[in-house]
């Protein structure tokens, strides 16, 4: 067992650190859940792409560095340690792109990925529906076969980033007669500005339009925008969901940096005794998540898939994130109440963690049934 990185990996880390040091905006960008902030974050994606840092583990021909999983983790550590802006392109980079690498065509990859890497196209996730949150098998929005493509109708909701994004990806019911509800779903990419699409931003807890409802009325998508075989959407989406909960959605760098900031806040206040255990636990939890992720990455690189173990990660980081931010707000006292306070904004964002990407209740069911072998029962 060895916890050190190779000299070549450390050189990569140093290169990333140097570039970020020279390019990260000195002042935080406005919230990406505002029109102004969204534009500023889109420009930052372009800046990242100009340095070749927007999708470091992608193949070079799509704008990446082909750096591999370990270096991606190191890049993320440096990214968050540098205090770099949140990634407005994250839905695309961490959810759609892995799906395209696995299930898309070369033509789709060549068309979609370079524009995604530079922030020219920002992607929204359009999975949930009013009657289907974690239970994606109950999706109702339809895709109806027409010459050359499909027509989409129905409603999607709580679509992250959709208030300002350009395009979206989601699942649509293409075969209502399929023998089981999770069969007959098709994975589709569509334009949020296409004829027949109405986007209604929804205010998050803090009022910011972090997501949106989408109303689709006979929206045409060409065959080239279907990912994988029609009717196979569930299987394809589940592969993405495992990636989402597992390695790619929340890298440890984010929490290492957050724990350091929390520790600095605590120190700046003279290290009050009341918060000591929580601050120590934040540092310990970030280290645990870092080491667990490197171990998982090692197994991944050895040819294993993450599978149901991704659910362990998802519950861990989402609850960790809330605990850390609650501690910060407690330390800030009255100041923590103010909406423009960065800690408050991060706190509101953290609150969504146990809900999205499959609720933590569903993740615990997966852990119990798939990792512990307990019998299925009524939810």
């Amino acid at each position, binding site marked *: 067992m060895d916890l050190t990185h190779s000299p070549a990996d450390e050189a990569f880390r140093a290169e990333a650190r140097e570039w970020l040091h020279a390019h990260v905006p000195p002042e935080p960008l406005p919230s990406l859940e505002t029109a102004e902030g969204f534009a500023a974050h889109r420009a930052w994606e372009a800046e990242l792409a100009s340095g070749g840092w927007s999708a470091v583990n992608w193949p070079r021909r799509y704008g990446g560095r082909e750096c591999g999983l370990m270096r991606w983790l190191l890049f993320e550590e440096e990214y968050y340690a540098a205090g770099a802006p949140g990634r407005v392109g994250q839905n695309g980079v961490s959810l759609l792109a892995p799906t395209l690498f696995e299930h898309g065509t070369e033509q789709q990859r060549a068309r979609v990925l370079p524009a995604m890497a530079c922030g020219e196209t920002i992607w929204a996730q359009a999975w949930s529906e009013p009657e289907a949150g974690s239970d994606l098998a109950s999706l109702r929005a339809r895709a109806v076969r027409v010459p050359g493509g499909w027509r989409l109708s129905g409603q999607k909701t709580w679509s992250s980033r959709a208030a300002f994004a350009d395009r979206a990806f989601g699942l649509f019911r293409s075969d209502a007669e399929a023998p089981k509800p999770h069969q007959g779903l098709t994975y589709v990419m569509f334009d949020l500005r296409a004829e027949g699409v109405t986007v209604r931003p929804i205010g998050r807890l803090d009022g910011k339009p972090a997501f949106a409802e989408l109303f689709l009325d006979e929206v045409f998508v060409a065959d080239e925008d279907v990912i994988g075989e029609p009717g196979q959407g569930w299987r394809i989406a589940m592969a993405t969901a495992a990636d989402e909960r597992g390695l790619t959605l929340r890298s440890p760098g984010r929490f290492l940096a957050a724990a350091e900031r929390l520790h600095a806040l605590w120190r700046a206040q003279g290290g009050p005794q009341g918060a000591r255990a929580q601050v120590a636990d934040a540092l310990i939890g970030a280290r*645990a998540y870092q080491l667990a992720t490197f171990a998982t990455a090692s197994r991944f690189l050895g040819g294993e898939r993450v599978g149901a173990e991704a659910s362990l990660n998802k519950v861990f980081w989402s609850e960790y994130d809330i605990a850390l931010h609650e501690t910060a707000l407690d330390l800030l006292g009255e100041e923590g109440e103010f909406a423009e306070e960065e800690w408050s904004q991060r706190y509101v964002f953290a609150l969504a963690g146990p809900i999205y990407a499959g609720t933590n*209740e569903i993740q615990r*069911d997966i852990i119990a049934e798939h990792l512990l072998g307990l019998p299925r029962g009524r939810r």
Partner: protein
Amino acid sequence: MTVSPHVPAPKAPAPRFLLDAEQRAFAESLHAMLAAAGTPAVIRDWSRGERTAGRALWSRIAAAGVFALAVPQAYEGLGPRPVELAVAFVELGRYAVPGPLVETVAAAAALRAPGPAGRFLPGLASGESMATLAREGGYALDGDAAAARLVLAADGLRLAPGHGPVRASLDPARRLTRLLPGGELLDPDPPAEGALLWARLATAAQALGVGLALLDRTVGYVRQRVQFGVPVGSFQAVKHRLADAKIALEFARPLVLGAAVTMTPADVAAAKVSACEAAYATARTALQLHGAIGYTAEYDLSLWLTKARALRTAWGAPDDCRAEVLRARA
């Protein structure tokens, strides 16, 4: 003593961030040996002060090379090999092996003065003798069973001349006693911090093993225990408690192994607090999900339940460990 065949010398570079094949094989061989040893009966004997079976098991654990991992090669050991030691202690915890396991390791780490080291270490490595170690004013585990009773006193490492009355722990297998003051000064400047570090690491690993065993046993129980016509393991409230136990243990594991690699005080303290909290939370879940049978001393689960609580405060309570984590960043 002959060097154990079970712990080969380090060789090929390991896959990063994971145990290598030899380390995994070592764990599996210990696992198999302990699974066949029928430890519950051994533990119950030990709790009554009847040590024949415990000493026999001790010899087999020593023959597998476990104590030698903490003993330098100059004194007929294989060490220092903290990663392999952590791997071994996870298995010892998994089977709730009784005796001054951690304390023998800590004593080996404290014995560095050539004279005393030469006197005691070969016997500790081979399993011929067991040691215990206490901080001055603290309690020693199994002081009545140990051949070498060591005290980290203000003026150095001392060989205690005897021990006081044995007190029962809430873990019946842990028998605690004060060591008598005075005795031979073995080393005026012992590596006390290092010895405590080894004690803490071994305790963390042992606690992780205790927690893993509690989870396994409870999963097995709720799969077969039927109420309202279905296995209780099909109830979501039950599943979710066990899922949380699994999460806590799986995130403590890399901290324990990582601490064994770095052996920094902060990493070892983080491992100790995480593993012990995870094991203790799992114990609470295990008891709740077993119901009244879990509360029954004659049912074997109790052997792990009580140990999880005792290990939580042994060699560094949670608050001490958290303070150590913060101190490293001061």
